[in-house]
């Protein structure tokens, strides 16, 4: 027995369903025969699995995520990168630099210095939440200039839109380059400050109203499309 409708807003402690044939997914726990919500979010039912798409919460790194981070420390053989959320990530030299590096003779800050913003990929997360990053892959690089804004990581799918439609719309209508990290950090660079501000405002609107429908049209209108 499932008591909630899909896309319904649920809050912690709410009984979502009852019965051993339902499987508790993300954001839910089983308590006896009942399935209980543990976070604020939208209920989501797929087959027998009942899960919650959270609306708030810290970033939870997973292997394969492409994230944006800031170098906060340089160690002997790598960098410590802040990727938002409760845990710092580790970027070892071997995953960051293509050429051979003599660790005794090289100052690592010539590759990435404190405060540098980077696009990196999460390659592993251990049970005790040691996060490892890699710079090997297309599009993974140091970010020069631009602005970084931070939103809740769970709203990233809405910012990107179905098949990248929303982010494509913002990019085209504001004439900016945008990179969205899975951790909710978004890098925006345009040739004019005005364009960047426009894009930032659009993204914040999406974050605030991510649980409502008809968002694409609203953003279109906001960015000055008269046809809708």
């Amino acid at each position, binding site marked *: 027995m499932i008591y909630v409708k899909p896309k319904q807003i649920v809050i912690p402690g709410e009984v979502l369903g009852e019965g051993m044939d339902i499987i508790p997914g993300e954001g839910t726990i089983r308590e006896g025969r009942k399935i209980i919500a*543990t976070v604020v979010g939208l209920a989501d039912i797929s087959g027998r699995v009942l899960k919650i798409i959270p609306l708030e*919460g810290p970033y939870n790194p997973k292997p394969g995520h492409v994230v944006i981070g800031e170098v906060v420390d340089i160690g002997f053989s790598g960098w410590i990168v802040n990727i938002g959320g409760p*845990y710092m990530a580790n970027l070892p030299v071997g995953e960051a630099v293509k050429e051979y590096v003599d660790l005794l003779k090289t100052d690592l800050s010539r590759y990435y210095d404190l405060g540098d913003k980077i696009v990196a990929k999460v390659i592993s997360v251990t049970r005790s939440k040691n996060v490892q990053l890699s710079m090997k892959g297309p599009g993974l690089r140091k970010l020069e200039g631009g602005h970084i804004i931070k939103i809740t990581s769970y709203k990233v799918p809405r910012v990107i839109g179905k098949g990248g439609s929303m982010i494509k719309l913002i990019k085209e209508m504001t004439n900016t380059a945008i990179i969205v990290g899975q951790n909710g950090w978004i890098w925006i660079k345009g040739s004019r400050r005005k364009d960047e501000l426009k894009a930032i405002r659009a993204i914040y609107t999406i974050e605030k109203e991510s649980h409502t429908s008809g968002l694409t049209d609203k953003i279109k209108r906001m960015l000055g499309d008269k046809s809708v």
Partner: protein
Amino acid sequence: MKVDVVPSADGSAVVEIGNTKVIASVFGPKPLHPKHLQNPEKGILRCYYDMMSFSVPERKRPGPTRRSIEISMVMKNALASTLLLEEFPKAVVDVFVEVYEANAGTRCASITAASLALADAGVPMRDLVSAVAVGKVGGMIVLDLTKEEEDHPEGATDIPIAMVGRSGKITALQLDGAITKEELKKALELGKKGCSILYEMQRKALKAKYGVR
């Protein structure tokens, strides 16, 4: 009750019960330093309770006191069992509660607000916690004492109760004063009823943030 009132916090709530008014803000989960405080098995919860200097008729000296440190601990114990902190090893969740107007029952209002703020921050939890004080004033069992009732000339008994909403389990119970066994049972029943009313209000406040009635 209202959530999301402090923009810089990850989660926040304001709770006004009569003339007792508190703001709770939650920061985290975030990395915990110094490292020796970290628990590799689960995250930890830290609570800070503070009364603002203008919250009481006579100015309170700012800063932590013996009383506020104790209430912080009571709050932590009342809330920790509902949180699923196993998902955040080595991290910490900070809860700051500021009482900006006090008229008895501040610790109960603080627990109610803190639980709401934690939910708003997206910290996973089994259920919300609500708290209220019951007591005996002049031979009568009453709910949610005011300062005047607490200072009743015949003496008053004050019993703060914190309850997990759905299951009705009690996570905090204190007693200041004298009461008989039968009266205590009656008081607890009344307290539980009060907590369930607060629980419903908490749920409404959380949903109201997203425009749901």
